[in-house]
């Protein structure tokens, strides 16, 4: 199979966005959980913030990450002409 320069660039972009989103995922999950006792001192929408992040904040960020990735990649497919018919 011939893989063109352009296709390699497509794959590199995919890996880059994957790494970026994965970093956000990691921070939102583990860093906020680690600091949740301190975050609980703050109030957000009436919630202790640490609790809010675990119960709603993190899942909302996850949803945003997945939606962004789908949009980004579906566009990238077209841009690099590897989209399905």
């Amino acid at each position, binding site marked *: 199979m011939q893989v063109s320069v352009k296709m390699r660039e497509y794959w590199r972009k995919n890996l880059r966005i994957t790494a970026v989103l994965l970093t956000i995922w990691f921070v939102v*999950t583990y860093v906020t959980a680690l600091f949740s006792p301190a975050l609980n001192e703050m109030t957000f929408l009436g919630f202790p913030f640490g609790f809010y992040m675990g119960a709603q904040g993190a899942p909302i960020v*996850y*949803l945003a990450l997945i939606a962004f990735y789908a949009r980004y990649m579906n566009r990238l497919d077209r841009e690099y002409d590897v989209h399905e018919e």
Partner: protein
Amino acid sequence: MGNNIFVNNLPKIYGAYTGGFLLFIIFLAIAEQMGMSNQMIGWIFMAATIGLYAMIGIISRTSDVAEYYVAGRRVPAVFNGMATGADWMSAASFIGMAGTLYALGYDGLAFIMGWTGGYVLVALFLAPYLRRFGQFTIPDFLGTRYGGNAARVIGIIAAIMASFAYVTAQVYGVGIITSRFLGIALEVGVFVGLVGILICSLLGGMRAVTWTQVAQYIILIIAYLVPIVWLSYQLTGVPVPQLMYGEILQRITELETQLGITKHHVQPFVNNDKANFLALTFCLMVGTAALPHFLMRYYTTPSVREARNSVGWSLFFIFLLYFSAPAYAAFAKYEVYTNVIGLPIDQLPAWVASWSKVGLVTIADTNNDGILQLSELKLNADVIVLATPEIAGLPYVVAGLVAAGGLAAALSTADGLLLTIANALSHDLYFKMIDPNAPTKRRLLISKSLLLVVAGVAAYAASLKPDTILHMVAWAFSIAASAFFPALVLGIFWKRANKAGAVAGMLVGLSVCLFYLIGVKFYGMTPWFGIKDISAGLFGIPAGMITLIVVSLLTKEPDAEMQAFVESVRYPRLGIA
């Protein structure tokens, strides 16, 4: 052409279905006011919903292989999202999650974060590529990617290990719900539920299961949201429990201080230490991205593009339930602190009395003062969701609705799991390894017979009421994560991963995980770094991953043809070269 008309009409079909279901509830509510008995309402709910699932099964019956295994690969993203939501959310999510959060407070959020955060891994590492590979099952992927039968066989074994305990727990859940609401014996309830599951998956395979799961999702989400929305309206005047329970949490903290409770509901790491909380979150996430019954749903979308979108919809639909579960826990706790604790025992609210009759609430006046103290009240985890309609003073029809929702959650998950086990045996073991020339008719016949056998064994196991069921379900995540995750993800992202590496990695990952959880749980082994058996994957996943990498590097790289194939999966379509 008929297919396109069907797909285009899906929103209309399910819209009408949802409206019909709401009318059905209103009709029953009116009937209740006119004097219909609770028992009768319970029976009508069960008969109507199980009958409905069976009907969808009959309508979607098929003898076409692609329809049977992957629903013809034409399930649109939104509907696959709903089906995945029902497939994913089991009886434990529907009934047990709120109770866990009630008992553990913040520390229970490991389940919420774990079971939602795993979808990010699915979206980034698996769903689009699995769809591009375009096989029928997860062992199929392993067999194709690594060649030969060794990886496929380990995949079959791990898939069955992760799925069987899980399906047994679902069948048990069906038994509990039907027996409690219909007043029949648990053993009978188990088999009643089984009929509902079998009619569906037996006749139409993945196609019937998909369209039934969409119907089940709609019922379970309505059933979950109605009581809590109502309760929120009563307590706070605003029918948005997911926002309003923040205020309730603050009042709970004040009440806890007054009652002298030192482990606050919102305080992190009081019921589970920091290391175990993070380890559990990690294992649940990676396990989500490795459970075969769930991953195989992404084979059913029409394209890679739809597979990507579908992961987002799946998370959206499960999020609706998961972000409401902590509200259930908070409202129940508030009710207990304000309306139950400190009251004379003969003046407790009616819901406490009615659920203590079935043993889900226990009251023991240990100091004989006639007043209920917090330590004298014990709530079973299942009671939080089941009792909320009564706490809110809702008519019995809502309790019946909740039971139907729990049943839908258990049945839909059981459907997906049974299909996974039967397909692993019929497609991977029989068709791919024993008789590759088997005619379609025989393949499907074998699959359907195996489905019957597996379902029968699961029902038998459930009727024995083993207490280890719940433990085994939690283990399924660690087992699947250790066995599958490294081989799947590296198989996609690392061309150099080869057969020897995958086989060694899967064996080592699975063995380390099993050794740890069996050792700690049954043989009193000292936990490593204090990590509980439920998070055995914390050791199994890296062990499997390192082994896969090292062994692959030490052995010959995959042939050029395979490397080109792996490369091709990176692009939804091969463009101009």
